[in-house]
């Protein structure tokens, strides 16, 4: 569990990026921060591994205030995946994946063996192990980034818009892959995005932020969709317009779900909702 208590961050130039932020991030669940550019998502995320130090308040991991921990050691037990993969261009894929274990002094042979397994885990062919990052496609680089984040088997995985820079098809594939991984690995994932669809797809807990890291609403995707806290949220999740304002129409004896512009979004069927993890109880 990660707990923020009245955390603020003011940068040296005076920018108050995060103002009095409090939140509990439950273990073994995916928490997604979503909000428009500059609202403080990255700042909040980076305060967890102390790449950014908070100005006031406290942040605890499993009840332990991180301010007393050694930064470097703390970071080695927290996975981090970022937008442009951040892979080290001068190291082969296998060495990139093995980065943290190697830093921790795990023997090279052992670290490499584990790195190869991780390539399997993230759905990459082992034949890519000896390539350099520049020899991979964007989607493959992101997978390597995820494998690297998992290499030291951290309990916590921080992901800052990890799929923001890949094309929509690859993004959808990576999202499914992350859902599968999370089912298998059960990490505490903290995920940042400005794509509300991605947030609803991945998040057990979705936190909608406004400038200054102000929480406008938090809850499960169903909770937020069914009861947007205010107009801002309603607007942000697209409930007032576009594809989320759905209505039912009868066509040829079947119930068809249409969006606000009359485009077909699907058909209505009976029975279970297909195991969606946040189906209404």
């Amino acid at each position, binding site marked *: 569990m990660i707990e923020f208590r009245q955390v603020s961050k003011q940068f040296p130039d005076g920018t108050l990026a995060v103002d009095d932020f409090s939140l509990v991030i439950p273990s073994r669940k995916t928490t997604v921060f979503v909000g428009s550019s500059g609202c403080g998502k990255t700042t909040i995320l980076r305060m967890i591994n102390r790449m950014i130090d908070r100005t006031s308040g406290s942040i605890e991991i499993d009840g332990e205030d991180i301010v007393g921990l050694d930064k470097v050691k703390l970071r080695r037990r927290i996975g981090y995946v970022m937008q442009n993969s951040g892979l080290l261009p001068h190291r082969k894929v296998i060495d990139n994946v093995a980065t*943290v274990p190697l830093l921790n002094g795990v023997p090279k042979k052992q670290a490499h063996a584990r790195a190869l397994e991780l390539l399997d885990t993230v759905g990459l062919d082992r034949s890519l192990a000896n390539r350099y990052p520049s*020899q991979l496609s964007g989607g493959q680089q992101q997978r390597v980034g995820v494998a690297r984040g998992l290499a030291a088997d951290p309990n916590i995985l921080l992901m800052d818009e990890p799929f923001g820079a890949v094309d929509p098809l690859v993004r959808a594939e990576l999202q499914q892959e992350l859902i599968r991984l999370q089912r298998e690995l059960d990490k505490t994932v903290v995920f940042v995005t400005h794509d509300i669809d991605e947030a609803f797809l991945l998040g057990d807990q979705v936190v909608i932020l406004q400038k200054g890291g102000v929480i406008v609403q938090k809850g499960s995707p169903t909770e937020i969709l069914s009861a947007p806290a205010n107009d801002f949220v309603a607007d942000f999740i697209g409930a007032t317009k576009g594809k989320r304002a759905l209505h039912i129409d009868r066509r040829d004896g079947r119930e068809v779900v249409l969006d606000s512009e009359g485009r077909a979004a699907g058909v209505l069927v009976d029975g279970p909702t297909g195991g969606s993890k946040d189906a209404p109880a």
Partner: protein
Amino acid sequence: MNWVIENLPLIGQRTLEHLALSIPPIVLSFVLSVPLGWLANRYRPSRGVLLTVLGLLYAVPSLPLLIVLPIILGTGARDSINVVVALTLYGIALMVRTTSDALGSVSSDISQSATAMGFSPWTRFWKVDLPLAGPVLLAGIRVVAVSTVSLVTVGAVLGIKSLGLLFTDGLQRNIVAEVFAGMVATIALALVIDAVLVLIGRLVMPWTRATRVAPTRRARLTAEAAAS
């Protein structure tokens, strides 16, 4: 031409002496520029001061410097140390700016992700920032190498042994072939050192030769992703 053939051993001898005077300044300016370049890159105020001072240093003419140095250092006028020190100073003057720029050009995404992985600042410098600055450092040191090889000849005016002695001696005794041989040998030596540096670069930075995924291949990967 006869002169050259008859004096091959002498040319060889001078080439070796020239080499012995060139290598230390090249190596030293590379090594010393790393901490200085780091300083210039890390602390912005120091950058202006450092680079200005070094720029002025480079403007000091080499012959007077070679005459003044023994007085400052307390060495003999013909001591080869003077040449090594003078050329190291020139090398640093060229190399610190390059090193500072090279370190500054390392993508912030990469250094931040290295930090996030748990590299300590020290480890990150040696294992990430410096290697990634490598290609630019190599370009810089190649310039320093060629300039050093050429400047070593100036010491000949003071009688310090190098290929430069072939110019001075050839001029005094009016042997055109000797002057010519000195020039050709100096250029050849510069080219050889340059080639060696390029080779070292390839060996220690294999990633710079890694070819990118061809666009067609990338398109196919995307198509595969779409199909699956």
